[in-house]
């Protein structure tokens, strides 16, 4: 079971900021999240299923872009942080 933390900026699309999930992979976790909060669909992943450029996901503090991406296993994971990256201006 992983504790999932959502960026405050996502509150517009997802009412819950923190919850617990037993999804086996990050992709499955995002599916679960979109079922729970339909307005999140295509906000974190585009319609081809790719994580948007400025959405950053960390599993146990490690950014998934540096590992298996959306296929990252959540087995044994304790925390998942879904954030927006430093960008803008």
């Amino acid at each position: 079971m992983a504790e999932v933390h959502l960026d405050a900026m996502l509150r517009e699309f997802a009412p819950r900021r923190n919850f617990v999930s037993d999804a086996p992979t990050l992709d499955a976790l995002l599916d679960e999240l979109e079922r729970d909060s339909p307005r999140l669909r295509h906000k974190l992943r585009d319609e081809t299923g790719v994580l948007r450029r400025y959405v950053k996901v960390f599993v146990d503090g490690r950014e998934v872009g540096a590992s298996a991406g959306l296929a990252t296993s959540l087995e044994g994971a304790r925390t998942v942080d879904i954030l927006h990256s430093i960008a803008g201006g």
Partner: protein
Amino acid sequence: MAQKKVRVLVGTRKGTYIVESDTRRRSWKVRPVSNAGRDIFHVTADPRRPGTLFAAVNSGFWGPIVYRSSDWGKSWREVATPLTPVAKSREPMFDPDSPAAKGRPVINLWHIAPGHPSEPKTVFIGTDPHGLFRSDDRGESWSPVSWVQDHPDRKNWSPGAGGPCLHTILVDPRDPKRMYIGMSAVGTFRSDDAGAHWHPTNQGVETPFQPEKFPETGQCVHHVALDAEDPEVAYRQDHGGMYVNRHGMEGRWERVGKLKGAPPDDFGFAVTSAPALPGRAFFVPLGGEARTTLRGGLDVWEWNDRTRRWRSVLSPKLFPGDYGVQREGIAADALEPAGLYVGTTTGQLVVSPDAGRSWTLVPYQFPGIHSVEAAVG
């Protein structure tokens, strides 16, 4: 009965602004920003349902989102967003074997156009990558106009500097089946069967950026406006100059931007026409590598297609500086005399309540302006 208001719908790099006045258009009130922080490429009013607005919202973080308002922008609701139909999608929108199924996701929404008055729930939207989508339920769902998505030459369509976008959608007010679209670095096309088939309409438009000067397609059209009285007449601001066509975009376009008395350069992005000023179009000439105004100040020119004369309607001495104006950066309202509105990439909104005889600056520093539209109601 409530007094009519004029509302300027301003899409900026950091949100949507609604700027209001009475019909005298001398004093303006800027309402609080909505969709703050997001790139708003276009905001448009639906004249078939007064009070309804659509906004093409592009969030750097969360992607493209379509918003609709039913109260002149006081509140907004997210509706459906057009998506590239992709084979990998969990819910394919149409044939997954379509060439478009291998395409890129929609990354920006460029232009929203309400459909013909006889189709009161129809709305069109143009996207990057080159895409045209149709909704018949006021934006609650979208279908791709497959000719654009599946075109065999699509792989050869190049992006302009703003990306591979479909940015101009015009529905003939006399006939819902006749439509025109404009795509950056591809050109303009006409359909006479509500979008099932299209043919290119770029004859006579020069492409100074490639070896072949007058190809059938490949023109970098920047924007097109139909004449308010005679929709057979179209005014075109192209990368290759300022043009007019008087035959429903069939046959040759005439390059009026090089005639005697024309603006200092016929490059630019924006063009509009005004219902109260048939036979006329308004352009903002730009130039140089900076793509800014050329005469030391904001500069607006009127082309009168009946007298075949050019006229400067905004002296550059009035608002000195070097200004950029994007393709949706000039608009007219439907009042008499016509109101003209120009938004700049540095966030100035200037207004003429009398067809260009006088101008004022709305006293508010906006973020960089992508688009202006005017609605009366």
